[in-house]
């Protein structure tokens, strides 16, 4: 393995010299080949390493969408912070939403780094949400009408996110994998927070239990969509080839169902899918197909029940307060120039 790495390093070195001497296309192809050899050998790519444009663009798309989903995911829960029914729950939910925004901020910084060659920074990446140029997860287009939804989001959505993000821990892009390590650790606290809210409701009064069942009924189908179609799109397949991601949509969904069926039934709640059953031999779960068309449209056109309301909140924060960021920048610039020593 060491020899292999050294050989590649040597070839990279020689290649660099050839590139600076001029000529691109042959070198580009050769570089891509070497890059793929590194990927296939399980090596990790760092931010300053050379990478094919396709790899960079897939990473930007993935990490931008991931970061924006974390930020848009703050909205359905944030609405419940002022209404949280105890001091403990209020502080915990506040901290959870803060974490999600923190994840969004960290991921956007990665996307900003990758987007530098395109001259795009935070402002542009955030503008993309408002202009519908970046998608966010289907679950955050949905309504969260009760306190139970605030708990179920932590329980199911964060639980689902742990499953998708755990496979990214081994991503070929090292900065993403490192960041996910921290994010996944926090997501598991979020899942536990959601589980604690859900447990209290499951052990509570009939009204609380009904509220919980209602929320599970609302979130199950969107969660089936959450992992994506069985037949993965071209982009997702390329991400597998580049080892940006390492598992198929269906593998992740099966893992989720397998994990959550016993959890939900042990709460005395039911899963709103009459088709749901496990093959005794293959252990494969059979489930009703979510309404692919409806959710796809929701994600692509921002046409879900809460899509526009949540984008409007982001617009209020980002566009509505551009004047604050401008003032901050102006004042900071002035402070810096005032502290410059006289020449």
């Amino acid at each position, binding site marked *: 393995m060491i020899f292999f790495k050294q050989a590649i390093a040597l070839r990279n070195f020689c290649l660099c010299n050839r590139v600076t001497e001029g000529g691109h296309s042959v070198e580009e192809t050769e570089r891509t080949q070497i890059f793929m050899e590194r990927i296939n050998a399980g090596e990790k790519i760092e931010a300053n390493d050379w990478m094919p444009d396709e790899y960079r663009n897939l990473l930007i798309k993935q990490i931008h969408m991931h970061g924006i989903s974390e930020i848009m995911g703050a909205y359905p829960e944030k609405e419940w912070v002022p209404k949280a029914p105890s001091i403990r729950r209020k502080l915990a939910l506040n*901290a959870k939403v*803060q974490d999600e925004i923190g994840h969004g901020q960290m991921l956007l910084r990665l996307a900003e780094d990758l987007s530098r060659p395109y001259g795009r920074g935070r402002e542009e990446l955030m503008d993309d949400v408002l202009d519908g140029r970046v998608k966010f997860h289907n679950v955050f287009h949905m309504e969260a009408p009760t306190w139970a939804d605030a708990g179920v989001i932590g329980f199911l959505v964060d639980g689902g996110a742990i499953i998708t993000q755990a496979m990214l821990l081994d991503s070929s892009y090292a900065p993403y994998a490192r960041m996910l390590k921290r994010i996944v650790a926090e997501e598991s606290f979020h899942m536990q927070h959601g589980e604690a809210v859900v447990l209290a409701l499951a052990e*509570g009064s009939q009204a*609380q239990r009904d509220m919980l069942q209602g929320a599970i009924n609302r979130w199950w189908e969107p969660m089936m969509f959450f992992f994506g179609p069985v037949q993965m799109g071209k982009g997702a397949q390329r991400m597998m080839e580049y080892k940006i991601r390492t598992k198929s949509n269906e593998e992740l969904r099966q893992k989720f169902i397998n994990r959550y069926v016993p959890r939900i039934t042990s709460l005395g709640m039911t899963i709103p899918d009459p088709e749901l059953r496990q093959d005794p031999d293959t252990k494969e779960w059979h489930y009703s197909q979510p309404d692919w068309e409806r959710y796809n449209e929701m994600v692509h056109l921002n046409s879900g029940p809460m899509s526009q309301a949540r984008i409007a909140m982001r617009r209020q924060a980002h566009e509505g307060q551009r*004047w*604050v*960021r*401008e003032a901050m920048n102006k004042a900071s610039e002035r402070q810096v120039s005032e502290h410059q020593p006289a020449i």
Partner: protein
Amino acid sequence: MENLGESETRALIQLIKPIADDEWIVGHRGSEWLALTPDLEEDLAFSSISQDEMGHAQFYYELLHSLGLPSADELVYLRPASDWTNAHVLETPNRDWAHTVALRYLYEVLDDIRHEALLGSWYQPLTDGVRKIRMEEKYHLQHFTTGFQLLATGTELSRQRLIEGIADIWPRLSDLFAWGGSEEFLEKLGLPNLAQSQLKHSWTIRMEKTFHDLELPWPGPVPGVKVNGRNGEHTQDLSDLLDVMTEVHQIDVSSPW
């Protein structure tokens, strides 16, 4: 605790309750800014501050509980507006960012003066907590001092909006310095620096300096008390806030959530 006489207990409650309520309401209003502040970094900082404020309130409510009042959760979720003793300006719904930064800066300076004075108390459970709280409050004050300065010196627009925010808040500030009823309890507690006149004086000196340094128009002396939140006098804004805050809890007050 067992050595406290009845009048001392009453005095401590009279002292702690308004501070607890101020901190809770400030934290609650702060948490409404979640995911809505001007940038992600501010969101992270401000939500930490809001959690701190509500955490401080929780400490004070637990102290009040140890002095014979209901539990912290009951104090937050089961009191009518007329039993809340926060300064009424703090219940104002959030407006623009400049308004929030102005209000929080004016409040944090008072909070700093108040907490410093509290360290003079002979009641150790209080001073133990205050010492820890002051470590966090130092950063809150720093955060809003910076925010206030940057808006004042940023652009014409930010300065204008800050001045408008101050103009809206200033006439409603008075009960921030006040206590409910007579101030005799402060003597019993050996905390004369917490008298309304003292607080207002110390606060005004610091404000005059800030306004002078930033060349902001001085709004004049803080007007006298018209609505005294310390006596349970509030605006409709507090009732609206409590309706939202207790909405879920009210579905079933006897069941744990």
